[in-house]
């Protein structure tokens, strides 16, 4: 039995190696075919052999920044309420709902963004000359998608702060708000940071929302305006693999998806490793 169990565990290493090898193989193929000057040009248009990496990188940053601006306050606020203010019974009832919310598929959120967020929220506030497919709507939808994740992980961390710390604070005459902000939040800071980094990493890797609502079909010029359509790394990968942008053959367009995939993989890997290291450094034992 031991051998069987060990092979299953060893599979994790095999998968990691397979990911790195398949991404790196395609990426090297791309770099050998593409004109490296096009990696810094006016936009991301794979079919015209323009591979401006900064366009899709900035697009990804834009969408995930909007997402985390939505998810951080709402997620942390909801977590603090559930952990410090809600009664035991309502917490038992509300936490599963929050976790169910976390399982809403991203295509569903994309549909919601297209039918509701874009026309009813973004166009209402910024005028109807904003196109229905824009990066701001995509960012808001990604933010709503990762909010439950941030809330759930942060709530676990706050809930794990021992009650004796709260009692000591209340015993010194602190109000509940002071206890929450000055005692519980600092004690849970490692978990809260991990929640935010996880949310950010999830937002960077989110694909379907940007592919549907981002408005970058076919490619995109370099732009930092969130009210226009644009392309992210994930959306660039999907449009290279499907639909109108499907490209095969000897050119550099098809292998470029492996190159973008490798960048995406490294970006999220650094974030996840950073989160883990940070949590280990600031974690306190009570």
């Amino acid at each position, binding site marked *: 039995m*031991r051998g069987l*169990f*060990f*092979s*299953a*565990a*060893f*599979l*994790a*290493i095999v*998968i*990691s190696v397979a*990911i790195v090898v*398949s991404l790196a193989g395609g990426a090297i193929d791309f770099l050998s075919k593409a004109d490296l000057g096009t990696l810094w040009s006016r936009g991301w248009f794979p079919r015209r052999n323009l591979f401006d990496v900064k366009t899709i990188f900035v697009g990804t940053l834009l969408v995930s920044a909007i997402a985390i601006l939505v998810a951080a*306050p*709402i*997620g942390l*606020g*909801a977590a603090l*309420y559930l952990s410090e203010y809600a009664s035991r019974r309502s917490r038992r009832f*509300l936490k599963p709902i*929050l976790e*169910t*919310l976390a*399982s*809403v*598929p*991203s*295509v*569903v959120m994309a*549909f*919601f963004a*297209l*039918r*509701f967020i874009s026309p009813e929220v973004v166009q209402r506030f910024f005028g109807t000359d904003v196109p229905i497919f824009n990066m701001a709507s995509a960012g808001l939808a990604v933010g*709503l998608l990762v*909010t*439950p994740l941030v*809330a759930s992980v942060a709530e676990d961390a706050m809930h794990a702060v021992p009650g004796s710390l709260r009692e000591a604070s209340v015993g010194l005459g602190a*109000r*509940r*708000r002071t206890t929450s902000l000055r005692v519980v939040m600092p004690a849970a800071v490692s978990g809260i940071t991990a929640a935010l980094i996880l949310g950010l*990493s999830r937002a960077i*890797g989110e*694909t*379907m929302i940007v592919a*549907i609502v981002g408005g970058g079909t076919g490619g995109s010029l370099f732009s930092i305006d969130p009210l226009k359509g644009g392309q992210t790394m994930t959306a660039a*990968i*999907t449009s290279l*693999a499907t*639909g109108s942008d499907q490209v095969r053959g000897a050119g550099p367009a098809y292998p470029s*998806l492996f190159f973008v*995939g490798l960048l*995406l*993989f490294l970006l*999220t*890997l650094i*974030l*996840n*490793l950073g989160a883990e290291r940070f949590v280990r450094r600031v974690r306190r034992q009570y």
Partner: protein
Amino acid sequence: MAVRVETATSAATERVRSALTGRRADVGGVVFQIVLLLTLVFALAVLMVLLIDVARTAIPYLQERGAEVFTSGYSSLPANSGIKYGLVGSLYIGAFVLLLALPLGVFAAIYMEEYAKDTRLTRFINTNIRNLAGVPAIVYGILGLAIFVELLGPITGPGSTAGKSLLAGGLTIALMVLPIVVITTQEALRAVPSSIREAGFGVGATRWEVVRSHVLPYATPGILTGSVLSTARALGETAPLIMVGAVTGFLATEGGILESLQQRFTSLPTLVFAFVKKPVEEFQQLAAATILVLIVFIFLVNLTAILLRNRYERKW
């Protein structure tokens, strides 16, 4: 008498409190609490608005077309289109998770928690599992494209399928949820107190006997919850399936279960993607109907997990 004592005490409490707070109510504290409550209400309200928005479009549409939506395949005419092959594909994906990712994940977790010593290799495997859980879904899609479609294409989908088969899709999704199954199972195993194991070893049981008859039974609810939640995640996943070539158009399926494994496929979320992209109102309605079916599917799976957890939750 008792009543009078109580009033006296509460009056005293009141006096002390007003003396301490200077007779001012804690306005800031109340506002703070209300703001926190509003964030929670907002997070939950999003789900309600989303459900209402989808149901308002989907239910009249489903009433109008009836069961036909569930029995017809894809067509370029929205009036003839249906989600039959999406349902079939999603059931297959769920089966891949339950038959492949679940056992492999549980085996790996048993090794890590019950057998492995704290060596450098063990720690390296653990770091790997944790990082794999954080890899974006679309990267698993690229992995599936490189390995199952291009490298193993002649096996996974020979002939005109060119590797873009159900087998490739199911394997990709199974690999994607594997680390999540491992991590949740590890947590469930860790929650079983070591006194249970020691009691087993004390009467001369081998490690495998202890795991099989003592640890696993206690950890089963936790393992089930974790695997049910991974299945829900797998059912809603779209991007990796699109990478390995899930069909967003016509689909011809012939033959039995084994033949269809090597043929092209689609799934409920892939169909949503296909319908949403079409700027025709009827396709948008069909997308809403597909989403409703998908959400009901996923929420039922989640509900099972919550009920399992509440039913078997145990404090040591």
